[in-house]
C-alpha cells in the first residue's frame, strides 16, 4: 500500500494517507484533481468499483467534504478518496461518465446538501423527498426541530426526562449521585 500512497502523492499531490484497516485506506486530494485521480485509480490500479460517494458538512471549516469509496476486487483493498469544496459555492465535477451509477449519488448530494454536479443526468430531480420546499435538509445549519415544530401538528402532553435522573428516581432512589 505504501507504493500506491507514494504514487498518488507524486502524481496528484495526494496527502494524509491513513491505513484505517488492513483492507481500507483513506487519502485526501484537491477537488480539481479528483476526477483525474479516480480515472487513474480505475484504469491503472484496478479500483474498478465505485462503492459509494457521499458528503459531510464541515460547517466549522466552511467546506463540504466529499468522499468517493473505490474498491479493488483483485487485492480486496478499498480506498476512500476525500476532497473538500467551498461551502459557499458547492459545485463539483461530475463523474457519471466514469461510473454510470454515480449520478444517483450525485442526485442525492444535490438534494440533501445542495451540492451541484453540472452535467450529471437528472441531477435537479427529486431524490427521496417529494415537494420539499425547505433548504437542503442534511446541512448542519438546517434546524430540524424548528422546522418540525412549525410544520407538523403536535399532541399536547408530551414530556421529556433525563434518562439517567429518571432511572435513578424510579429504580434506585436511595443511591448517591
Amino acid at each position, binding site marked *: 500500500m505504501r507504493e500506491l500512497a507514494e504514487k498518488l502523492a507524486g502524481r496528484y499531490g495526494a496527502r494524509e494517507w491513513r491505513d484505517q484497516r488492513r483492507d481500507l485506506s483513506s487519502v485526501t486530494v484537491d477537488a480539481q484533481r479528483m476526477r483525474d485521480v479516480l480515472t487513474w485509480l480505475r484504469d491503472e490500479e484496478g479500483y474498478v468499483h465505485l462503492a459509494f460517494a457521499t458528503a459531510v458538512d464541515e460547517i466549522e471549516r466552511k467546506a463540504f467534504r466529499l468522499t468517493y469509496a473505490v474498491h479493488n476486487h483483485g487485492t480486496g483493498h478499498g480506498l476512500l478518496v476525500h476532497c473538500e469544496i467551498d461551502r459557499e459555492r458547492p459545485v463539483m465535477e461530475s463523474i457519471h461518465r466514469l461510473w454510470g451509477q454515480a449520478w444517483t449519488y450525485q442526485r442525492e448530494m444535490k438534494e440533501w446538501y445542495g451540492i451541484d454536479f453540472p452535467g450529471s443526468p437528472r441531477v435537479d430531480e427529486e431524490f*427521496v*423527498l*417529494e*415537494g*420539499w*420546499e*425547505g433548504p437542503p*435538509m442534511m446541512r448542519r445549519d*438546517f434546524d*430540524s*426541530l424548528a*422546522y*418540525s415544530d412549525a*410544520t*407538523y*401538528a*403536535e*399532541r399536547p*402532553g*408530551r414530556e421529556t426526562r433525563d434518562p439517567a435522573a429518571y432511572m435513578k428516581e424510579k429504580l434506585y432512589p436511595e443511591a448517591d449521585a
Partner: protein
Amino acid sequence: MSDKKGKPVPLANEGLPAGERGLFCDAPPREYAPAAKIVEDFWNWARSQSLWILGFGTGCGAIELRPLMTSRYDMYRFGIQPRPTPRQSSVFVIGGYASVKTLKRIVRSYEQMMGPKFVVALGSCTINGGMYWDSYNTIKRIDQYIPVDVYIAGCMPRPEALLAGFQELKRIIRAGKAEGQNEYARNFEWYKANQKRVIKDWNMPDYNW
C-alpha cells in the same frame, strides 16, 4: 343508505392536469346513516368478525404484523387476514411513523378503501411522533390527516398488544362506535386542509375514490 346532505359541491381537483380531471371522481365522501337498529347491529357483528387488513406496511411497525400471520399468534382465528388491495380491505393498520411521502400514499389508500373502514394506529410515532418528534419529514400525529379508531401504544407494540387492539376494535364496531369513516366525511374539508398543508406537491385527486 342515503346521504344526509343535499347535492355536494364538486371537488376542484386542482392538483391534476386539466386533461385528467374528468378521469377522477369529483364528489366528496358521504356520511352513511345507519339502518334500523336490529339490522345495523347484525351488520356490525358481521363486520367485526371479518376484519381484512390492507397489506400496506407504512413504517417499521409493520414488522409486527408478520408474526400475527404465523401459527404462534394466528390472527386468522379472529377473522383477521391481510388483503393485497385497498378495495378489498376494511382495516388500515398504520405501522408506525409516517413520512410525508408515505402520508400521501396513506391518504390515497385510505380513501380508496370501501366502507365500512377502520383505522388502527400502531406505535407511539402515530400518537405523538415517538422518536421522530424532531424529524423534518415525519408527521407527529396521524389523526390530523385520517381518522383513527384504535391506538396501540408502544415502540414496538408486541403482537399480543396488536391482538388486544384488534379485540378492542371489534368491541367498538359491535357497539356501533367505529365512526371514523363518517367523521372523515363530516370533517372532510378540515382533513383535506391538514393534508394539503404538509403534502406540498399535491398531484392527485382531492378524493381518491
